[in-house]
């Protein structure tokens, strides 16, 4: 049975935490997550993290921006208020390019930032729930979820310490 108890192992070296995580996964422990100040090559694959759908969202946002830009410009310059400027036709497609391009990027940028906040559950008034403040500086933390009557905490602690953990402690997540 899963609990909300976690064992944290704190490390000071990306190589050490990578090899420890690999050992833990091989031994069948349920590694919840690894916290690091920077990306560790290969860690995503090791933890089995799936590819994010953010790219699809980005494409859809870009298409929204593109459609809106084209619709607005066609409506203004062809339907609502046709004006001859510099002898150009009313439906002057080449001049639409910069605005369409910029609006697609604007919508993509804003949309993706919004998505990022929503996916990471970051909004006003929410307290930052950092597992250990030092992961934002120079340390690396691996957190293992404890499964009742299954996880051998003694053995787990031993593995963590043997592989060079600076400290091992328990944490209860709400």
């Amino acid at each position: 049975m899963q609990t909300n108890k976690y064992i944290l192992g704190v490390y000071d070296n990306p190589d050490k935490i990578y090899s420890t995580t690999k050992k833990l996964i091989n031994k069948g422990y349920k590694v919840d997550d690894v916290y690091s100040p920077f990306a560790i090559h290969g860690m995503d694959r090791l933890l089995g993290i799936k590819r994010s759908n953010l790219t699809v969202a980005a494409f859809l946002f870009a298409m929204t921006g593109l459609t809106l830009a084209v619709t607005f410009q066609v409506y203004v310059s062809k339907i609502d208020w046709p004006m001859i400027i510099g002898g150009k036709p009313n439906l002057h497609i080449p001049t639409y390019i910069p605005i369409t391009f910029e609006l697609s990027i604007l919508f993509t940028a804003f949309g993706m930032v919004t998505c990022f906040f929503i996916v990471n559950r970051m909004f006003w008034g929410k307290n930052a729930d950092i597992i250990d403040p030092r992961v934002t500086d120079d340390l690396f933390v691996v957190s293992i979820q404890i499964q009742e009557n299954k996880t051998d905490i003694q053995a787990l602690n031993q593995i963590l310490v043997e592989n060079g953990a600076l400290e091992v402690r328990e944490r209860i997540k709400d």
Partner: protein
Amino acid sequence: MEHAEVHIKEEKFEISSGNKKWAFGLMIVGFLLAVIGYFTYHPHIEGLNEHDLHHLTQKRLWSNLLVNGYFFFIVSICAAAFIAISQIANAGWYVAIRRIPEAMSEYTLIGGPILVIVSLFALPILYHWAHEGIMNPESANFDAILAGKSWYLNVPFFYVRMVLFMSFWMFCAHMFRKYSRKEDLEGGMTNYTKTYALSATFTVIFGFTFSMFSWDQMMSIDAHWYSTIFSIYNFATGWVSALTIMYLFTHYLRSKGLLNIATDEHQHDLGKFMFAFSVFWTYMFTAQFLLIWYANIPEEVAYYKERLFGSYQFLFFFILVLNFCVPFFIFMRRDWKRSRKVGYIVGAALLLGHWLDVYLMVMPGSMNLATLPTAENPGGIIKVPFQGFGIMEIGFLCLFAGLFLWMTLKALTKANLYPTKHPYIMESALHDVGV
């Protein structure tokens, strides 16, 4: 870090009989097609006399040589620029495929002299400013605008610039290869540091000289016309083509079981580069086109009028499809950047598109005939419509492609397939773009 095990070993490439067949087959077939195309081309255009029509045959021949000579030369010199730029950016990922741009840059040894010889003959035939009497106020051919540019556009200075620039680039490319091959034997940091210093020098000088080179070779064909973004547009063309050829070579070598140190990750990053610089090319294309279209100044639109409304209209839009739509919509997907089949298709489309791009820079301007200025025709230029994409074009393209292929494959055999003692080789071998 515990990753899949990587063994850095000395690996050599050997030219197979299939490679030989392809390279020499292309050259021979190309040469035959070009010769047949030259002798079977009999233009019929109303209002032109026998002498003019004969001149047109000459023009088409040298235009084709110029298109191919220029395209393959800038591709191979952009490969050298890729090495230089990656080097000064301290890039690690590209080291596994570094020998491919090195090999491509070896084509300059033969492509450079070819381009000089082609220019030697093409100058009085293709370039209006180099015609007799253009700069001479007493002549009937006198053109005051071009005469005003004579301090820059004159034949001796043209050659001095061309030979000076090309020899400097070829020297740098040669030194990159030399240092890299020496590094395989000696190890250590000496050669890396030397390459670094030379790359910085090369990049700065290349930026300026490539601009002038593209004005001389391409922009001065339409000598009245000028565009300030033209050189970076040319650079984008050469750069994307160079990246595409690197991408195709990496796929090819891996499909033959060689270059195992390069993985899908490297392929992916090259694909991203192709995607990004295709968009960059389109940006430059639009930036050049949009301002000229909007301002509508006669001396500027002359260049686009022939291409946009004349007989070259189809090709003009076709290159936009090949160079923008194809890579943009296909290479947007992650797994298609990594797929060999899709990669070959997109690569072929991009190469054809950029070759056609150079073709469109040259042909509409160079095929025009010069006559005496009259009241009806003050510019003294007879516009010649698109003469069709015939076997002469295909022949010369095959001939030069075969030559390029042969030079590159031969250069690949001269050293290990990847630099075994480069300081970043392990970083490159473990390169990972993430999930």
